[in-house]
């Protein structure tokens, strides 16, 4: 699960990580009230959407470009004007796709007197199964870029979660960043707080970028990101309330309600598969034969007739040009899946090509069932055969 920057900063503050004074506005009336709250000085006005690249992104309102997704303004009046030109607009960044995202929330944040910028993040290191804290002097730039060009500038400590954070972890990182005296102590406390937040809230990523050292020698989190481990959400009731469904793909939200793993992609060939690995491989093989997958869809190891029918409805609403059903029957029997297919197709008038590949447990019965149904199903011998057939059927239809 992802949350907005202003929500992450709320959790940072709760955890004792200093952030600049900020005001969130979600309505024109709330923007009016800002005049009484903002003091003279620099204000940074930031669109709140989940996608990254906001600073370089552009906002349009009624077809008119109103400026960037993040703007530094001088004085309350300019800040208020910037907020007005963002709220309700559509922000297009490198990560949003062409359609962009509507800006429903704007954060107006006090400017900070920056002396130097750093990077600080916590993740779970898969290889060592420890919490890795990474820090760098290259704050404000994408850490992937730093990792590619100057990996020696990223410093890492790995913490055994059974032992937890110890002061020397933070101190050793702080020394690498060149901190000393009171700033080093501040940094130790800040890393400790970030670690506690990361573990306590089941984060998959807790990132502060940039972490700023002000001219007054104070460490402040200027921008930050928190992502959460979905597997931990069952014990994070307060976090679930922070979810912004408007930022998610509607069909994905609907599919998730039925425990279907569905991810919408840009292509036009729908895929219905059992198992995540096979589902990924099915997308790959469609692409390998010149087609474009419309989705990732794992109906689960136990593909029930109900879930097969639901999956069909979702793909048809996504207006796919054809559907490839690829099921390896193990514990789940192919004839049960075939019956689900026949049922699902009884409800809808299918006007697009459907290729079905069933392999494994009770395959012959399944193939017979499909043949008897008289439905216009193209059967496939194996995955490769199925992928070729659906790609050529979709191309013929265009």
């Amino acid at each position, binding site marked *: 699960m992802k949350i907005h920057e202003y929500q992450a900063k709320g959790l940072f503050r709760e955890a004792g990580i200093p952030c600049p004074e900020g005001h969130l506005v979600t309505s024109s009336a709330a923007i009016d009230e800002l005049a009484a709250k903002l003091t003279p000085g620099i204000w940074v006005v930031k669109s709140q959407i989940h996608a990254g690249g906001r600073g370089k992104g552009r906002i349009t309102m009624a077809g008119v470009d109103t400026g960037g997704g993040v703007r530094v303004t001088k004085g309350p009046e300019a800040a208020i004007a910037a907020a007005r030109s963002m709220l309700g607009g559509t922000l297009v960044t490198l990560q949003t796709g062409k359609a962009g995202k509507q800006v429903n929330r704007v954060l107006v944040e006090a400017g900070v007197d920056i002396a130097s910028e750093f990077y600080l993040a916590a993740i779970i290191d898969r290889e060592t199964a420890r919490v890795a804290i990474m820090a760098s002097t290259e704050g404000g730039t994408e850490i*992937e870029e730093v990792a590619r060009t100057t990996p020696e500038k990223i410093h890492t400590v790995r913490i055994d979660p059974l032992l937890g954070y110890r002061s020397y972890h933070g101190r050793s990182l702080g020394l690498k960043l060149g901190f000393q005296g009171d700033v080093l102590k501040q940094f130790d406390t800040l890393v400790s707080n970030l670690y506690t937040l990361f573990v306590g809230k089941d984060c998959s990523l807790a990132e502060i970028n940039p972490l700023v050292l002000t001219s007054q020698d104070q460490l402040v989190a200027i921008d930050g990101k928190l992502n959460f481990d979905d597997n931990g959400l069952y014990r994070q009731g307060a976090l679930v309330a922070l979810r912004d469904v408007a930022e998610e793909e509607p069909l994905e939200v609907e599919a998730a309600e039925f425990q279907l793993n569905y991810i919408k992609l840009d292509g036009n060939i729908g895929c219905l598969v059992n198992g995540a690995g096979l589902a*990924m*491989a099915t997308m790959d093989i469609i692409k390998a034969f010149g087609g474009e997958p419309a989705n990732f869809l794992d109906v689960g190891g136990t593909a029930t007739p109900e879930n097969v029918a639901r999956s069909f409805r979702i793909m048809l609403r996504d207006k796919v040009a054809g559907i490839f059903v690829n099921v390896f029957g*193990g514990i789940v029997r192919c004839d049960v899946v075939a019956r689900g297919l026949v049922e699902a197709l009884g409800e809808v008038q299918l006007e697009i090509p459907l290729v079905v590949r069933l392999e494994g447990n009770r395959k012959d019965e399944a193939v017979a069932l499909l043949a008897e149904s008289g439905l216009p199903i193209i059967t496939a011998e194996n995955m490769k055969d199925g992928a070729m057939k659906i790609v050529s059927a979709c191309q013929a239809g265009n």
Partner: protein
Amino acid sequence: MAILLREDSKIVVQGITGGAGRFHTSLMVEFGTKVVAGVTPGKGGQDFEGVPIFDSVVQACDATGANVSIIFVPARFAAESILEAADAGIELVVCITEGVPAIDMAKVKSHLARTGTLLIGPNTPGILAPALRCKVGIMPDMIFSPGRIGVISRSGTLTYEAVDQLTRLGLGQSTCIGIGGDPVIGLAFLELLELFEADPDTDGVVLIGEIGGNQEEVAARYIKEHMSKPVAAFIAGKTAPPGKRMGHAGAIISGGKGTAADKVAALEAAGIKVALTPSDIGDTMLAALEEKRNG
């Protein structure tokens, strides 16, 4: 004969009275697996189809000599069940449960490093050794056949796809292991490759990876430097968009790392044959064995 499992592997099922526990215990027993005990706190003294149920793993071990555990408990209890098994002296734990928080698994792994317990999973279809008639998992046993190929995989249905092809090509399997689709897991490709390399009854290995993490790259390095047996690989997720969790919690490209292209490149650079599609996994293994034979 196999890796991880032996003739004397005796299995205790943690969560034997739940839906999945009951269903798969029956199938494991039917296949020939020596299921000697079940554990469900509060149901000690009862039995499931003749398998005695205990209140704790320690009791189950004392009474039956169980040395391998399989876990079907709900996600919120899974980490504790692994710890209970480890502290009871179980040698090998297979955690089928999906949805265990990653931080819990990190803590569990830290503890297992002290007890020396081997862990497979979580979020795995388990282990199957055809010649031993031993299945500690949920795999459809009818597609397997005894033989000399090892299979290790991060995905369930892709494993079945591969095993089905191997069986049809006359390539039976020594041991098949699903290592699990989560970011933090027990034994990974590296440790299992080491076991297969040392196993006198395995001639070659099929390795099925996917996006996320870097254990395929680590495996490639090991194979190149230390492995004498041929390996055939497949990597899923070439078309997966970055930043999205593709079904498995561990199948995510983050920060530009863990892409299928990187993994395929690392494997090929190490001289490993990588199947283009899942339909080619069996043939790729056959070709790798052939190449080895011709030296």
